């Protein structure tokens, strides 16, 4: 159905922040004085439009909530046709509210956080660019529009990780993030090509159908093709969402300013992979293999991220490991099929609130500690930063899953859904999710105790103080989300709201606070907290990191992900490059030059110098042409 009313203005959602980015980047220094205000205002404007669209949607019945908006014909040649279309449906509007809501809060926070940065205007330009691209990603009405947004957020992420370009570590991390994401995008592009060859279109409506009643072309996929498309989409999702084996960029991405880590590398962009998998549900449902691989990737990453989180003394990196791990939960849920889609998205939204809150809280702490990120230099901050402590604490309770806070509802939902999955697979997946909950409780308690409790371990000259209102108010708003988002979504019928997009869960089990898996999770969480308390709460924390066990060392080194990449990809790549350069200079060009010298050798040196050019290039061209002719003959005779 066509979008009407406010929903017909869905393009404004993207246009407003995009205009902000354009004005701030092209306007240059002239916009320094008010640039941050304009950026924030436009982000808030997008939120207002999104909220109005949401209210309008609530007025429609189930199937009518899916509205399309045709903007212009993007490209057409022969049978290839791509329209600039937007799709407003319950799934996309959920993301719209998260992106613009949390995004606006982070804009406001950044006004204070970046106040002393001479390039604050450029920062807001990039933030606006990000919001625009992310909204296109979730609102795009076909896979190509989604891909354009997908790479757009990659660009924004690159620009913001490398915002402090003059720091070599930041410049390297930015490049790494983009390149690893491009490896994922390779998968996405192959999936696009497969879709075009299979369906002849990229449209969500044509491929995926329009909800529960009308099936799309995906339902006719052969298992093999469905597996291929599904796995290639998963490769894309792994890159964007920092899932194994494409996880290595996320920890380095913490080089960016903290609001960026909160918005892009925790709350929104990194969850795009989950969006892609849930959106493509009808494709994944045609292949059990693809779904199984999705759950395995999720389960492995949720454990790996949690283990990495345990080993980090850098508060942002501990939180980054945690982000990997939490997205692992979402991916796991998304791979479970109809039982998991709504929970995956619910956890995604809940996580968006509490993780953004945690990161911004970390930023507030860093602000107080002269940008020191080492938690071994923190301690006892509870007393001096009451608001930060309280809001961070609520986020902490939410993420470890203490009832009745946010994460309790959504994460328990995932654990139970995993156990409910068939047979041994379900037991293994559920077991991983449970274990992950215990480790989460441990590492988050570690962060909490090392930062806010225990004795002062402050460096000399550090005088911590509470952050200004412009930073603490967003913290408080996000804390409300940490408290209530989970219960609101899980008890408030979020899965019914999403049903027109992802279908009804097969068996509708309501929330059961006494499910065995849930109770087990609570026990494990308590154990995790207790272990952390024994080590970091009850005992003084050494200022210098102890040597640590094998596991700790491995966790500090990101489970050797970088070492693996380096030895498997970077080193061989460097050798290949060198070899190719040598071959091109000496081989293609030089062999022929040598041949020319050999032939001309008897004629004496003088002549060779004079005619060397002519002869060697004549031969070199002949050589090249001969290669082409020979190849044609060999193949075609």
């Amino acid at each position, binding site marked *: 159905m066509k979008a009407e009313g406010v929903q017909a203005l869905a393009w404004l959602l993207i246009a407003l922040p995009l205009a902000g980015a354009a004005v701030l980047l092209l306007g240059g220094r002239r916009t320094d004085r008010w640039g941050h205000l304009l950026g924030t205002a436009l982000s808030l404007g997008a939120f207002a439009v999104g909220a109005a669209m949401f209210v309008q949607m609530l007025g429609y019945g189930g199937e009518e909530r899916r509205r399309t908006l045709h903007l212009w014909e993007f490209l*057409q040649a022969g049978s290839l046709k791509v329209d600039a279309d937007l799709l407003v449906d319950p799934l996309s509007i959920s993301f719209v509210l998260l992106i613009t809501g949390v995004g606006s809060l982070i804009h406001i926070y950044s006004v204070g956080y970046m106040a002393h940065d001479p390039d604050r205007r450029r920062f807001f330009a990039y933030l606006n660019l990000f919001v625009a691209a992310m909204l296109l990603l979730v609102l795009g009405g076909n896979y190509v529009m989604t891909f354009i947004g997908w790479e757009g957020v990659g660009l924004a992420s690159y620009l913001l990780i490398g915002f402090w*370009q003059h720091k070599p570590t930041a410049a390297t991390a930015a490049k790494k993030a983009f390149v690893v994401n491009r490896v994922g*995008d*390779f998968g996405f592009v192959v999936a696009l090509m497969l879709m075009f060859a*299979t369906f002849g279109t990229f449209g969500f409506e044509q491929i995926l159908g329009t909800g529960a009643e009308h099936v799309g072309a995906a339902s006719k996929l052969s298992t093999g093709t469905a597996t291929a498309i599904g796995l290639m989409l998963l490769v894309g999702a792994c890159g964007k969402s920092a899932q194994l084996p494409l996880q290595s960029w996320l920890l380095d991405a913490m080089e960016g300013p903290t609001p960026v880590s909160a918005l892009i590398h925790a709350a929104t962009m990194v969850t795009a992979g989950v969006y892609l998998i849930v959106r493509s549900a009808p494709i994944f449902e045609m292949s059990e293999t693809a779904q199984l691989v999705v759950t395995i990737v999720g389960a492995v990453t949720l454990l790996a991220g949690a283990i990495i989180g345990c080993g980090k003394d850098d508060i942002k990196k501990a939180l980054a490991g945690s982000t990997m791990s939490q997205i692992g939960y979402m991916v796991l849920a998304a791979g479970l099929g109809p039982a998991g889609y709504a929970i995956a998205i619910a956890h995604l939204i809940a996580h968006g609130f509490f993780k953004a809150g945690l990161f911004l809280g970390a930023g507030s702490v860093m602000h107080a500690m002269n940008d020191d990120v080492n938690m071994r230099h923190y301690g006892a901050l509870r007393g001096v930063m009451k608001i930060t402590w309280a809001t961070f604490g609520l986020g902490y309770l939410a993420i470890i899953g203490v009832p009745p806070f946010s994460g309790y509802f959504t994460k328990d939902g995932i654990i139970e859904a995993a156990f409910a999955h068939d047979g041994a697979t379900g037991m293994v997946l559920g077991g991983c999710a449970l274990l992950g909950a215990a480790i989460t409780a441990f590492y988050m308690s570690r962060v909490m105790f090392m930062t806010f409790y225990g004795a002062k371990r402050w460096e000399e000259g550090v005088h911590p103080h509470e952050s200004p209102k412009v930073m603490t108010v967003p913290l408080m708003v996000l804390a409300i989300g940490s408290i209530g988002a989970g219960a609101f979504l899980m008890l408030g019928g979020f899965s019914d709201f999403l049903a027109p997009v992802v279908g009804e869960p097969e068996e509708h089990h309501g929330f059961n606070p006494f499910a065995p898996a849930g109770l087990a999770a609570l026990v494990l969480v308590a154990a995790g907290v207790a272990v952390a308390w024994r080590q970091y709460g009850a005992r003084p924390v050494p200022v210098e990191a102890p040597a640590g066990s094998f596991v700790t060392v491995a966790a500090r080194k990101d489970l050797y992900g970088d070492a693996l990449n380096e030895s498997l990809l970077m080193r061989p790549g460097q050798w290949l490059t060198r070899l190719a350069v040598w071959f091109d200079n000496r081989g293609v060009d030089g062999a022929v030059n040598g041949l020319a010298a050999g032939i001309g050798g008897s004629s004496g040196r003088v002549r060779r110098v004079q005619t060397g*050019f002519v002869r060697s290039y004549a031969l070199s061209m002949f050589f090249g042409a001969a290669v082409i002719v020979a*190849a044609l003959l060999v193949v075609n005779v």
Partner: protein
Amino acid sequence: MEDFPWLSLLIALPLVGAVVVGLLPGAKEALVKQTALGVSLLVGVLTVVMALGFDPDGARFQFTEKYWWIKQFGVHWAVGVDGVALVLVLLSVILVPLVILASWTADGRSGGVDVPAKRSVKTYFALLLALEAMMIGVFAATDVFVFYVFFEAMLIPVYFLIGSYGGAQRSYAAVKFLLYSLFGGLLMLVAVLWLVKLSNEHLGHGTFLFEELRTIKDVDPTTAKWLFLGFFIAFAIKAPMVPVHTWLPDAAAQAPAGALVLIVGVLDKVGTYGMLRFCLELFPGASAWAAPVVIAFAVLSIVYGAVLAIGQVDLKRLVAYTSVSHFGFIVLGIFAMTSAAQSGAALYMVNHGFSTGALFLIVGFLIVRRRSAKISDFGGVQKVAPVLAGTFLVAGLSGLSLPGLAPFVSEFMVLTGTFSRYEVAAIVATSGIVLAAVYILWTYQRTMGGPAVEKVQGMADLTAREKWAVAPIIAIIVVMGFFPQPVLNVINPSVKVTLERVGHPQDPAPKIGTVAENGARP
């Protein structure tokens, strides 16, 4: 206006301009530059006026002119443009004034180190104008002999632009360029002469007119294959494709950046344009015969060029190798023989011209400032010259085909169009997007990122004149990234004719297609 000799005028005007600039007193440099800029702007405006009169749904070739030139040999002065030729002519006339503007103070000094201290300024600009005439001529020619004449005549201004205004190794690079091109030209000449013999046999009269030659049927397949090769190798050298690409990096390293914009941005397109126009339409059978091998070489060019680009230490050589990779995409699209791939390839030619043009211009600005083209001599430019760094980044991002910028559209079309016929080739070619990210962003990191190195400190940001030279290109790249369809509307009908000629009027059908009827969930 129908019979107005637009194209002859557009070819003659810059030639006259070149002569006028050449006759001006060399001491009055400002006058020389203003005249050159004025002429090129006039040509640009006239071309745009002409292009507005082009009807995509009308006759294939429009603004046609046909006069006897050498009647005894059957040679006509015949010009006209179809959609593909038109957009390439537009590309040329937009780039030339910008190159002239960008070369205002450089007069070739963006060639690198050890550039000759003082060379004739007016000759440089006269050569640029002469080159513009040749470029318009080569795309507008509808007589194969006229095409050949322009194809060879282009070498002369380029030879002098590299040989007289280049860096330390300029004569080496110029000779290498010239010999490579002459070798290809020679092969093509043989093929052209053979063609006229064929026309005598099949049509009863000797002719070089493209529209007549393409109607010749029943050419002996072996002959057609040899003729195809004669044209193809000439075009492959010009394009340039691996393994006949080695002239380009040397030419790029030595030529002044302004000239490079035209050499790589426009001249090399003559190679791919020639494949699309002449190889495919004159020898459809032989093209089908050669397609699998050509596609293999195209994919090789994509990957090999990208890997080589990563390994370069010189900025201009680096951009040259990225072009080898991009030309691989263009050739891939041409020979995949689907509408998406071929329209994509035609669009790619235009987009690459702007994208690489911008990159070379900005690299030129960097070299003029630092007096070096070595990547390791830069570092931290972003801190001292943010606008320069920003434009470099945008141009670079277009080089890695970022969505939202024009080259993405064409690369995407080539890849999806290729996949439906050659799956493996398309998948291997897709790896180019990862390699492109490495070569662009690593270069950006090394030149622009990090703390400003000593020699870069105090580097001036872009001047107003330099901004005016780059801004239009960047604007075009952005606009065509979001709204490529107006250009595709011009290109598509020409591509359709070509595909019908090679026997692929229909694209491969999708395996499942979309489901029209609404069934229940299984």
